[in-house]
């Protein structure tokens, strides 16, 4: 694979890889570093990339592994608010403060999930991947993925109904 082909096939994955890394790491700069590292790793294996059935899956797996390595290497939990901040900044004007609280709440709810569930929510509900693809990336069987996904979704719903119940009380 030469640079031209690499740019056409691999470069367009960058935002998807970035979102995935950011979901796991919850840190913009670290996620960028990871994506750069993934791109270099793939570039170093450019002669063998054609042998893989899906380069995208390979890229996602590499991203996942690098992110998990980084989390293991962390000595302190990273308290990062930049997701929330960016959301408030980019919020369409017709939405009110309740909405931003809710978005923040969903963020927090996902952040509190086990890493595997976070990844699965990201890959399924945000990126819209098939179970087969997700199975390959997170290295779990499809059934286990469905179970994890169900748990994650229910946790988010729990948060939403709690928030809403509080809302109605307030009104």
């Amino acid at each position, binding site marked *: 694979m*030469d*640079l*031209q082909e*690499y740019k056409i096939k691999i470069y367009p994955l*960058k*935002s998807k*890889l*970035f*979102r995935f890394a*950011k979901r796991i790491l919850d840190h913009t*700069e670290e996620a*960028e*570093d990871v*994506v*750069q*590292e993934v*791109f*270099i*790793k793939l*570039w*170093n294996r450019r002669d063998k990339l054609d042998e893989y059935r899906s380069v995208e899956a390979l890229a996602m797996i590499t991203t996942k592994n690098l992110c998990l390595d980084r989390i293991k290497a962390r000595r302190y939990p990273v308290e990062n608010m930049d997701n929330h901040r960016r*959301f408030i900044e980019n919020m369409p004007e017709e939405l009110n403060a309740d*909405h931003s609280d*809710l*978005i923040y709440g*969903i963020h927090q709810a996902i952040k509190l999930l086990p890493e595997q569930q976070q990844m699965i929510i*990201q890959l*399924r*509900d*945000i*990126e*819209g991947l*098939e179970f087969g693809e997700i199975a390959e990336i997170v290295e779990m069987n499809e059934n286990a*993925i*469905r*179970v*994890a*996904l*169900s748990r994650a*979704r*229910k946790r*988010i*719903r729990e948060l*939403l*109904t709690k*928030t*809403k119940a509080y809302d109605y009380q307030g009104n």
Partner: protein
Amino acid sequence: MTTREIEALLEKYFEGNTTLQEENILRKFFRSADVPDHLKSYQEMFGFFIEQRVEQLNNPVFEKNLSDLLVDEPAKTINISAISHRNRFVYITAIAATILLMIGLFFTYNQDVFKSEKTNHLNANQELAYAEASEALMIVSANLNAGLKQVDRLQTVDKAMKNVQLLNRFYQYQSIIINPDEIQQKSINSK
């Protein structure tokens, strides 16, 4: 899609049993304006997922770094550990600084360690000589300063002496005026 069907789909969704197509139906439904009140909270959830997918990696620095790194040369691999990572850079700098500091301190306090006994002995003499020489020079310098002050006073004496000379001349001329013969005789005698 009726509300009933949506509710059934939602149930399936929370069990993790919906297909991508069914999830798309849910997404579309919740994006529309007419969502019944009791389902409104799910609207936030699906809206959140859609919003999350929009985020792009748009960092010019990232693009530049990457295009600098990826060069189309066959069989050239990039050593990831050689690339400066934010964290790694800080660690390496800290370690390097510590090592340099330790080396510096070691040499400062153990200068004799690397010298042989002989030079050590010589050195002791040299140091002694140096110490004595500098002490002597310090005394000389201090006394010289004191002496220079005295010299300053000498200059006032000089001035006074000039006045005295003037007085002397005055006496000479006076004696010439009073006893010209005597002076002449004296000058002849001196010749």
